[in-house]
């Protein structure tokens, strides 16, 4: 099995993506806002991409705020 290159957080709203991006940057976690990859579904059109190696730190970050997400997916 090949290692995933990236992981993405699917969110319900662009504002949520922005909030998460800001939080991750503050924690020095590399991330980027990108259009939602076509194999995944979302409706706000934007998701937060990060490196799979940072997944644990990202989950900790998300747990610290009350933002409902659609899920974390590896791509």
């Amino acid at each position, binding site marked *: 099995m090949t290692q995933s290159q990236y992981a993405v957080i699917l969110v319900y*709203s*662009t504002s*949520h993506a*922005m*909030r998460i991006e800001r939080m991750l940057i503050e924690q020095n976690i590399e991330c980027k806002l990108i259009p939602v990859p076509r194999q995944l579904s979302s409706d706000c059109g*934007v998701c937060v991409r990060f490196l799979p190696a940072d997944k644990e730190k990202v989950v900790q970050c998300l747990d610290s*705020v009350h933002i409902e997400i659609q899920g974390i997916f590896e791509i």
Partner: protein
Amino acid sequence: MIYFDNTATSFPKPPCVLEAMAKFLNEVGANPGRSGHRLAIESGRFVYSAREAVAELFHVADPLRIVFTSNVTEALNLALNGLLKAGDHVITSSMEHNSMMRPLRCLEQKGVELTVVPCSQQGTLDPGDIKSAIRSNTVMIALNHASNVVGTILPVAEVGQIARKYDLMMLADAAQTAGVLSIDMEKDGIDLLGFTGHKSLYGPMGTGGLIIGERVDLEAFEPIKCGGTGSRSEHESQPEFLPDKFESGTPNAVGLAGLNASIRWILDQGIENIRSYEIQLTQRLLEGLKSISGVKVYGGQDAEKQIATVSFNIQGKQPSEICLLLDEEFGILCRVGLHCSPASHKTIGTFPAGTVRFGLGFFNTQDEVDFAIAAVRKLAEEER
């Protein structure tokens, strides 16, 4: 020309506001939150950055609790219409602007009970009178932070503590105070804060918002408009999360780009510095006007206890006549009449004729204040 109508809207705006808006229109332009392309993301960043600026200004931990509206009127309408139901009791003051009073009177027709607590002739409010008005069905206290007629600052923080003690929602109207008085929703016990962007925040018209505190029950809070949010588009029902629940339709992103710049400009200047400069100008204006025979100044007449808004009349002259003379003969632009606040004018004893109002701002100078005092003196002397 001397612009003394900053209470209605501030003018001029800091150059950074125009630059930010031009940048948005020239280089970004896309709809925020409606797609994932680079310009849509960039547009979303402008809007989110404005959220962060507002959060910093009012010490709000979560920027997503800021709901942008077109002005403070829409913000107050949202809070009042969205939360109050028939049978609920709400307490307000007799120094409210019609942006608070009219939606409340409208709700009264629909079965909401309303108590308007009288203020003194100087426009001051005794927090004890609010406490005495609390009933078993009271759910909210809705209060103006400072009068748009005489500038009197109302004791929002003291009333906020009463609201906390009796577990009531506290709605504050910061139309005249956001940007000049320090506001901390948590410390001041404010659950809902309405603000407008175009007055003492020095942003463009068409911007404002309602900040929703943690104590507000979101499930019981009905939106006053529903529609497209760019989120959960597969559902025909309104999203339940903030800010989308209350932010339907394409936002005023260009305006918010300007508001973001203006709030950051205020934070750079320092609210305390803006406030102390305005106190200085206001004190000078109050002393000058009070020294003129035939001029009556309203309100508490203490610059420390009011914002930079001063109301007066000249004996023997109608306010409308004074306004025209100040404009045509002296190039001084001000506002006269009832200032959308009949309740305040009834409280200070100037209903229905109204007053002449000078609304000073950070861009006014001592020389302008001195010139205006001399102009009023001349008009008053004509009457003798």
